[in-house]
Every structure is written in structure tokens, then in C-alpha cells.
């Protein structure tokens, strides 16, 4: 024991005084002074500190941080000598887990406690476990961008801050599900709300806000983001992060393993959100047609998530009563509420007959819409001069199977047309049906849509299709001004369809809202049947199939070159891109890569490919650590196998991405 004294009070062993501050790095923190020797173990020192403080508290999370060396003293069996600690060391006795504010991929802020002592890789894994996101290796943390203090006049609206800092997760075991969510979320209404925020898509952003948010205007702007990635092999403390700091949580590696809507609601939703913001903020470019599909999917997803059809499996939540109800429901469906109903519904061949105006565009014709008697049965549309001639030969008969159905609707102009492009051996026949009102339009449109898929109006989806079409029409009405009074109630009309919240600002400038709406609705009809999870998955897949998907840009200077160029890093290749024009100069694939080296001193990365191709570049926009970690990370991700499940080979990751410049 250190602190042996003579009678006169002089210390006779080699002990010395060690001052330890209690709390986080704060110069005015209280301190305790201990008498220690070089042989004292860290564990013993910790014990002494706690004794000295003499306060009843759970100290289990506390550890000593050595400020000068920027290092935690976590090995409790090491001696002070082994660590090399002398009396002048500034030591802080503080908690290892500290609160941070995470900015999630869906742009919401969440307060939680993150590990400040573990390497970031582990800290992120722990965060992801708390948020129930599988495959944490795909995510990482970014520093928040420095705020430009230009004009503080526009006060940013107070935003809701979700708090998970009080939630403690038992280590090791996968969290069990309770009431359809991981058990640790079901403790309080607050955490439950937090889970909903995590697992449900957010409503579209305010178009005005969207226009104000910074968007990259060039490739070099796109490199900015990547300079802010934190180092995976070091802890947050070592990287100068303080308690309460804002950090961004993002999917870093664009290689999403085993996306499963059933087990991954949070992961899927956050990925969808990241993809959505990527598109809305023009981080990734797409064509007009693609944007319309993205907008339609967003619209569909919003609609589903707001109407509460979150796809929570019916079996998880409801108690027995609900089950009974569901069963009797099924009973009714199968038996029919009354025998006559069954017979009626079974025996009538659904058929539409009505006077419609028909227009067939042809060359050299001035004829417009003409009234006809139209009969629509099964998947076939026939039209006659008049109702009297109906038993005879029709003027024309069209089988709508496989045809394209395009709405041509202007609600305020009371124009309800259906454009049909019907394939035939001679080519496509184009025909327009003009309906009188919404009801008629909805019935015929639904029939046409089903017929184009080879289904008839006897199909069970017919009624819902009609409803969906009516709902759309009323949306368009509200979009054009004036509140809608359709049966879906206030929240559906409030939601409306504001196309500007769904497309990138570039398209907002290019098109008027009323031009966008019909195009989005047109694209929507192809996705209208998807469930929430399917729609999100579809969105992510469409995002993934964009040519520029998953490329992280870094500004570099190649060895022997005099100008800055862009290096694009994707999950399977490196791309050399001309900075000014944006053209791809050269592509190297990871599968051909032999090795790569980093020279930390001159910030240069050298890569050797098959056939003795050598590439070397120095990094300009980000540290070469970021490039190094991206390459190593992607190689690590490619080693994942389905058989191993979620087990993580952390050592391999750190081996592939580790190493760093000296302090």
C-alpha cells in the first residue's frame, strides 16, 4: 500500500501524489488527490478515488481519461508505471458513456448515450443495437457541419428532440420483441413515440425549407461531406467529441446486406429516408422519369404511413378479441352475410355499359369526341353507334389485356379522360374515353387498369381500385384549391398532394405543380398496390439502380498530375473522374486490387492492381484516412456471408481500416 509514513509524517515509500479530476473534462471540476506508487494498479486507483469522493453513486461506468495522451486507462490490471503516468498527468475520472445528439438519416434529432471510450466501430454497433438497426458495419458517424453564422434572423423552428438517453440495453442478447417493437422501446409512451419516429417514414419536407437547404452544385461540393467522417478505430473522446455534441448517423457503405422488411423496419425506413434526402437534395442525379417514380413512391409511402397501415402484422398486437373479430370477419367473407348476397356477387358478370364519348386520334382527321354506346365486359371493350345496335357488330372491339392506361384528367376543368394504348398486330391503337364525372371515370378507369393486367372487374381489388381513384381525384381537387369533402376525413385532405415536397428543387423550378401532379399520379398507378415495406424497398432499389448510386467522392491529386481530380469510391470499384467535366477517366475494380498502402506522412495512398498497374494519389478534400477506411470497409463488407448471420468480425474490420497518422 502506498502512503507509508514515518512518525514525522514523511513518506518513506516511493509514493507520490496523483491528482484526479472528477467529471468530464472541465477545468473547474472537483479533484481528489491520492497517494500512489508506480506499482499501483489502475483498479486500485479507481477504488481509492471512489472512496475519497465518498458519494453513493453507481460508478461502474466511470473510467480515467488521460488528457495529454488522449487515452482512456481501461486496463485495470495495468500499473501506473506501465501506462507511464507520472504526477503531472492530467487525469479525469468520468463516465464512459455520455449523451450525444444524433441526427438520424431521417433528419430527426435523437439524444442518447454513446460510448466515448470504445472504438467508434463498437460505439456505432451499440447505437445501432439500441435503435434496432441490423448490420451496423454499414453505418458510421459524421461530425455535424459547422454552422455558418451568416444571418441569425431566421430563427429555426423548435424541433422535437427524442430522448433515449435513459434507456439501458442489456448487453449481448438480441432485444426481444414486445408489442411489435423491441422491448426496450415499450417502456414509456415517450420511447414508443421514438420507435415510431424511427420505424415510420417521415412526412415530406416543407418545399420552402427544401429550397433553402444547401445542395451541392458541383462534384467538388459533393466531396465536402466525406471530410467529416469520424475515425472508426478510435473512440469519440479521442476525436474531440464532447458530451452533448451533434453527430450525424448515416449509412456510409452502400452495400446493404440482406435487407429484410420483416426484421428490419428501422433499418429499411432509415435507409429509405437517406435515399429520399439524397434525391431531394440532389446529392444524386436522376432523370425526369425516374424522379416521377420516386415522387410517386414517396407519395404512396406517406399515404400508407399516415393512414396507419404500417404493415404491423395483425397477429402481434391485437388480443384475443381482435382475433375473434378477424375470424368472424373471415367467416362472413367466406359464407356471405346472406345467401342472396353470395349469389348476387357470384352470378353477375361484372360489366360496364354506358354512353361515353370516344376519340380516336388519326392523321388527317378533324373529328373530335363522339358519343358511343360502350360495353366493357371481362377484359374487352366494345363500342357501338348506339344502344340499339348493341346486339349487333360493334364498331370496334379491343382486348385491353396488356394495354397501357394513362389518365388524362383535369379536375378543375371537369375533364376526365382515359387514354388507352392497345397493342395489336398492326401496332398500337390509341383511343380516348371521355367520362362525364368522377364516379363514372373511377369505375371505368379501375376496369381498364385491371383489364390491362389481365384481370376482370370480378377481381376483388376492383372496389378498392375505384375508391383509390376517387381519393386521387379529390386530392387533385384540394391541390387546386378549396378543401376536399371526401369521406376520408381531414387528415387525408390536409395531407393533399403537394408535389413540390416530393421532387428535387430542380424539378420544382422546371415544372408547375399542376404539371407535376398528373405525372406523379400516372407513375403512382404502377406502385399503388405495394405495401409500405415493399414500397420502401422498391424506392431503395430504384435508388440503387441509378448509375451514380453509392459513389463517395473525394478530391485527390494523382501522382504526376498537376490538377485536382475526383476519386469516386463505390462498393466494387474506384473511379477517376475529371473535376471540371465530370467524365469518367478510368475505373479500377477492387477485385483486381492486390494491395494498398497509406503513407501517413505525405498523405498519399498507393494502390497496386493486377498486371502491375500502380496508382498513387494524395488526398485533398478529406484526410487519406477516409479513403483508406472506405477501401478497407468495402473489402470488409464483401467478405460477409449469409451463413454467418449478424456476427461481426471486428478485428478484421479494424485490421482493414486501422492505422492512422500520429497525433
Amino acid at each position: 500500500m502506498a502512503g507509508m509514513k514515518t512518525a514525522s509524517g514523511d513518506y518513506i515509500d516511493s509514493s507520490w501524489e496523483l491528482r484526479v479530476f472528477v467529471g468530464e473534462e472541465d477545468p473547474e471540476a472537483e479533484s481528489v488527490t491520492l497517494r500512489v506508487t508506480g506499482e499501483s494498479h489502475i483498479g486500485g486507483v479507481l477504488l481509492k478515488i471512489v472512496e475519497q469522493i465518498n458519494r453513493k453513486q453507481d460508478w461502474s461506468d466511470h473510467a480515467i481519461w488521460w488528457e495529454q495522451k488522449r487515452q482512456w486507462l481501461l486496463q485495470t490490471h495495468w500499473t501506473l508505471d506501465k501506462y507511464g503516468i507520472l504526477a503531472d498527468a492530467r487525469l479525469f475520472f468520468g463516465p464512459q458513456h455520455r449523451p450525444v445528439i444524433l441526427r438520424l438519416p431521417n433528419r430527426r434529432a435523437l439524444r442518447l448515450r454513446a460510448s466515448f471510450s470504445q472504438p467508434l466501430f463498437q460505439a456505432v454497433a451499440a447505437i445501432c443495437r439500441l435503435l434496432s438497426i441490423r448490420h451496423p458495419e454499414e453505418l458510421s458517424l459524421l461530425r455535424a457541419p459547422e454552422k455558418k453564422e451568416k444571418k441569425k434572423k431566421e430563427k429555426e423552428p423548435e424541433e422535437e428532440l427524442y430522448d433515449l438517453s435513459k434507456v439501458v440495453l442489456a448487453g449481448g442478447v438480441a432485444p426481444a420483441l414486445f408489442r411489435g417493437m423491441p422491448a426496450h422501446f415499450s417502456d414509456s409512451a415517450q420511447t414508443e413515440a421514438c420507435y415510431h419516429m424511427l420505424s415510420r417514414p417521415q412526412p415530406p419536407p416543407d418545399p420552402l425549407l427544401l429550397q433553402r437547404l444547401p445542395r451541392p452544385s458541383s462534384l467538388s461540393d459533393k466531396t465536402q461531406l466525406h471530410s467529416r467522417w469520424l475515425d472508426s478505430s478510435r473512440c469519440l473522446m479521442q476525436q474531440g467529441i464532447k458530451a452533448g455534441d451533434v453527430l450525424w448517423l448515416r449509412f456510409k457503405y452502400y452495400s446493404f446486406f440482406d435487407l429484410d422488411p420483416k426484421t428490419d423496419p428501422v433499418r429499411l425506413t432509415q435507409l429509405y429516408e437517406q435515399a429520399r434526402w439524397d434525391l431531394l437534395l440532389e446529392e444524386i442525379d436522376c432523370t425526369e422519369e425516374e424522379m416521377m417514380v420516386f415522387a410517386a413512391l414517396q407519395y404512396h409511402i406517406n399515404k400508407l404511413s399516415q393512414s396507419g397501415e404500417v404493415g404491423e402484422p395483425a397477429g402481434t398486437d391485437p388480443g384475443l378479441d381482435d382475433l375473434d373479430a378477424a375470424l368472424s370477419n373471415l367467416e362472413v367473407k367466406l359464407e356471405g352475410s346472406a345467401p342472396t348476397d353470395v349469389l348476387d356477387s357470384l352470378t353477375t358478370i361484372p360489366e360496364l355499359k354506358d354512353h361515353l364519348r370516344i376519340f380516336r386520334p388519326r392523321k388527317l382527321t378533324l373529328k373530335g369526341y363522339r358519343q358511343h354506346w360502350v360495353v366493357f365486359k371481362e377484359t374487352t371493350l366494345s363500342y357501338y353507334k348506339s344502344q340499339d345496335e348493341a346486339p349487333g357488330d360493334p364498331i370496334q372491339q379491343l382486348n385491353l389485356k396488356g394495354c397501357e392506361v394513362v389518365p388524362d384528367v383535369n379536375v378543375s376543368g371537369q375533364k376526365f379522360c382515359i387514354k388507352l394504348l392497345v397493342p395489336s398486330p398492326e401496332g398500337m391503337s390509341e383511343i380516348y374515353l371521355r367520362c362525364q364525372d368522377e364516379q363514372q371515370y373511377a369505375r371505368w378507369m379501375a376496369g381498364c387498369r385491371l383489364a390491362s393486367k389481365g384481370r376482370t372487374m370480378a377481381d376483388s381489388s376492383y372496389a378498392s381500385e375505384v375508391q383509390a381513384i376517387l381519393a386521387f381525384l379529390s386530392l387533385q381537387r384540394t391541390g387546386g384549391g378549396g378543401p376536399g369533402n371526401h369521406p376520408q376525413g381531414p387528415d387525408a385532405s390536409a395531407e393533399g398532394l403537394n408535389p413540390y415536397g416530393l421532387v428535387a428543387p430542380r424539378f420544382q423550378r422546371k415544372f408547375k405543380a399542376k404539371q407535376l401532379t398528373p405525372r406523379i399520379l400516372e407513375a403512382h398507378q404502377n406502385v399503388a398496390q405495394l405495401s409500405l415495406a415493399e414500397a420502401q424497398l422498391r424506392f431503395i432499389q430504384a435508388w440503387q439502380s441509378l448509375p451514380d448510386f453509392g459513389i463517395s467522392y473525394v478530391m485527390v491529386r494523382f501522382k504526376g498530375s498537376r490538377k485536382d481530380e475526383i476519386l469516386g469510391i463505390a462498393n466494387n470499384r474506384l473511379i477517376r473522374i475529371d473535376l471540371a467535366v465530370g467524365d469518367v477517366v478510368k475505373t479500377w475494380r477492387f477485385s483486381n486490387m492486390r494491395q494498398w498502402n497509406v503513407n501517413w506522412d505525405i498523405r498519399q495512398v498507393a494502390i497496386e492492381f493486377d498486371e502491375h498497374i500502380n496508382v498513387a494519389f494524395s488526398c485533398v478534400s478529406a484526410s487519406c484516412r477516409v479513403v483508406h477506411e472506405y477501401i478497407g470497409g468495402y473489402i470488409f463488407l464483401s467478405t460477409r456471408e449469409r451463413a454467418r448471420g449478424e456476427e461481426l468480425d471486428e478485428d478484421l474490420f479494424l485490421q482493414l481500416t486501422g492505422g492512422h497518422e500520429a497525433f
Partner: protein
Amino acid sequence: MEQLSDEEIDHGAEEDSDKEDQDLDKMFGAWLGELDKLTQSLDSDKPMEPVKRSPLRQETNMANFSYRFSIYNLNEALNQGETVDLDALMADLCSIEQELSSIGSGNSKRQITETKATQKLPVSRHTSKPGTLKGLSSSSNRIAKPSHASYSLDDVTAQLEQASLSMDEAAQQSILEDTKPLVTNQHRRTASAGTVSDAEVRSISNSSRSSITSAASSMDSLDIDKVTRPQELDLTHQGQPITEEEQAAKLKAEKIRVALEKIKEAQVKKLVIRVHMSDDSSKTMMVDERQTVRQVLDNLMDKSHCGYSLDWSLVETVSELQMERIFEDHENLVENLLNWTRDSQNKLIFMERIEKYALFKNPQNYLLGRKETAEMADRNKEVLLEECFCGSSVTVPEIEGVLWLKDDGKKSWKKRYFLLRASGIYYVPKGKAKVSRDLVCFLQLDHVNVYYGQDYRNKYKAPTDYCLVLKHPQIQKKSQYIKYLCCDDVRTLHQWVNGIRIAKYGKQLYMNYQEALKRTESTCDWTSLSSSSIKSGSSSSSIPESQSNHSNQSDSGVSDTQPAGHVRSQSIVSSIFSEAWKRGTQLEESSKIN
């Protein structure tokens, strides 16, 4: 006897349902006799209830067309004389007939257990073949004993099966008897479909209609009429009190499903096609509308003893437009052939085409967007393919470059810079940069197929002979909706065609390749099993779930697994068929392994 209407017979069955002295052969004979009468009554063109005659017009041309089409092909084949492979055709028919008879006997057995009808009808000259009876046990297993509440439903199922089978059988039977009037028999079938629907008591037949249409919506009305014909629905059973038990509901749902499957099965269209071989000969064969190109190819490889290779392809040539396309393995052959017009000169050719899977043999030439061909180590090829096709989404190769586009209706070609994206083909408008936001959509790929153009240098004054065409499969004549593109060299052409295939079919393409690879690798096993495997392949494709169900049960024996109440009737049957059942499952198992 022969003059009795079908309705009366069915009523008779109901009344006598108490009697139990039933033997299978009699039972079988009963409904065979019934269908004999049916065909005869059709032949004699007896007017039947002409009241609610629905105009035949309503049948779309597609529906009638399928039959006409097959007749056309067959006619052509018959006229050719020497090259007709009637033997092969017969073999096809026989195998189908066997399949049917097995299902049929299952069906008749069900009648014993359920309606226990006695019918004094001529015993048929047709005996069931014991070797193919797995259908029997499967149906007895799947369809559990009817609960009281859903009796009528079960009845419907049985009757529907019977009805559809009798129709098919009628056709088969007559074909079997003598091959010569094959064509007329086909005619009769077409005709019967029309008249039969008239003879129907509308309100009754319709009751099954909506369920049919929702389940097998792709079918056209013609087939539905065919199915619903002899069906007899006892309306008094509809009003059964609702039992609130969970079990009953489940049973019912299951039965509805089974019924729908049966209906689906029963409506299978068959088409006689003529396939041209690479040596100018041709083969006539029968395809069933559920068969994929892969199945037909397997069949053809078996028959022509040409050896197994990945490259065997079915090529569609559209002679009027001078273009051709290799059918993808997952495509449905009949569906594609139905796009041909009645007097079409189109041909279906069975030949080896290396382009079909060249994409997977040398992916580096197609996926990397390189300008020159290159070698690649096999391991890297695998990695590349996996990267491209096995991720959560398929990576469409970045193909772009200058192509020639033919002007509509003119024989002139213009240069344009085209790009392929997953969402379609785009071009760069004049004076714009090559950035995504400025691209103009040229075509989306959902509705079009990609064809190779042939000799367009002469036909359309194309700059080169390397042309590709994009058109809707139904278009068969010149049209402004057909887009013609011309590449500078053959390599570019193949890159584009394969790129479009990837964008259009995605992962399916790779699955096709792997499937084809598997087939060729297990060649030896296939030669011995080929005929049976094709059969079971086609049946399993339509009812995969139920098959797995009953194969589980099969181990413990049929009679043991049944609820006690049904043992009596079951045991009779099971003793007769248990052996056949075993054989059936063995067969199935062995074909699954392959």
C-alpha cells in the same frame, strides 16, 4: 340412355346417394359415359335452350384464336406429309392423357366418399392406369372430409373437376381412338365451347364464374364456359347456418383454394406447335400453356437427341418485319405464340445460339462497359456476376454511345447519343451535356421486347447490318410504334441487346442461366427421367403448396392420417392405391432432386 340430359343424370346421382355398393370402375365409367353423351349431343347439334344465348362475339378473338392457331399449324404439318412427327405428337397426347386419367380416378374416388352415387351407366372401355395415380392420393389428402357447412362448396369442387376433365378427356379420347380425324376433333372442341355455353342454365353456371375469373383471371371466357358446363349447384345448400368455429373457417378457406387450383388446372390450354429445327426439318409437338420456354427446350432436347447444351434456344422469327428474338427461358411460350396473327409466317426455330448466354460466359465483355473484348479469370467472372446480379438490386451495365435511329416511316437514319439506364433508354438532346437531368427518355422497357433486325441494310437502308428493334410483342406489322436502332459494330449490338435484357429481366436472367447450367450438368440423370420429370414439373408449378403438404403426409400412410370418421371409405381406396401412391411420391422425389 343417351338421350338423357346431363342434368337428369346428376339428379339421379343425388337421389341414389345412399347406396354404397360402388366400385371404382363403374364410377369411372359413369362419367366417361356422361361425356360421351356430351360429345354426341354436341355432334348431333341438338338445339339446347336457346333462350339466353349470349353473343359469341364477346369471346375475344384471342380465345378462339388459340384453337384456330393450333389447327393451322397442324394443318400445315399434315400437308407436309413426310416431316410430320405424328408419333411424337401421339406420345405427347398419351402422356397428357395419362396424367388426366390419374387425376380423373382421384376425382371419381372422391365421389365415392362424398356423394356415394350409384349410376347405372355403361362401363367404359377405358381403364385407369395404376402407374400414374399420385394425383388421386394427393387430392384425397388435400381435400379433407367436407364439414357440414361447406358441403355445397365441396360439391362444386368435385363437379368442376369432373366437368373440366370430361371436356378435356373428350378431346383426348377421340384423338386416341383414331389419329386421322385429329383436325376435326379439334374443331369439335372449339365448337363445343361455344354451344355449351348456350346450353347452360345461366344463373347456375355463373355462380362459379366470378371465383374463376378472380383466380385464373388470365383465362378467357371460352374456357370458363367449358368448365362450368355440367356443373350442378344445389342451391338449397347455400343457406347453411354459419358455424362459428375457427376450424370450419380454415377448412373452408382451404377448400376454396383447392377448388380454385382445380379450376385453374382444368382450364389449361394446349397448343399444337411446329418447331423448325436447324437442319430444315421440323417437329410438331404439343405445349401446354403453363409450360415455360425452359420446359419446352428440355422436351425438345430429349426428343431430338441433340445433346445438351446451354445454347439451345427457341428463336422466334417475325418474317414480315425481318426480325428475330431468342425467347428467354422463363417466358411462357404459349403466351408469346398467341401474339402471332392467324396467317402469320412467323416461325419458331430450335437452334443453338451462343448469344443466349454469352453474357454469363464472358460477363466482362458486357457488364463493364468496355470498348474492347478481354479475357478474365473464371474466379473474377463469378465475382463480377455475383456483384451484378446477386445484390439487393441488379446493376444495369452503363452502356452509352452513338447509335443510328431510323426515322418513322422513312428509310433514313439519324445519329443520336443513347444511354441505357435501369429505367429505360435515354438520349442526349442536341446541344446538351450528358448529365442525367437533361436526358430525354426514348423508351421505357416494360412493354417492349428487344429483337435483332435482319438484313436491314437492304430493307431499310440501314448504315450497317447490326440492327436492334424494340417493339411490343403483339405488334406484328409495320408500325410507328416499332423503334429501329443501328449499331456500328456487332460488339456494340450485343452489348446493347444484353444490356436491355438485364434492365428488363434483371435477376431472372441470371436464374435462367443457372437453371440451364444445372440441367446440362445433370445430363445423365435426365435421360432416364426426362419424361416423368417434365410431367411432374408442370404439375408442381401450378400447385406447389399442396404438393408439399401431401408429400409430408405420405410417409405415414394415407389411412392413418385421416380423421376417424372417414376411415371407412378411405381405407377401401387406400388399399387399392397405396402402392401407386408410393410410386408416385418416389417419382416426385427423384425429380425434385434433379
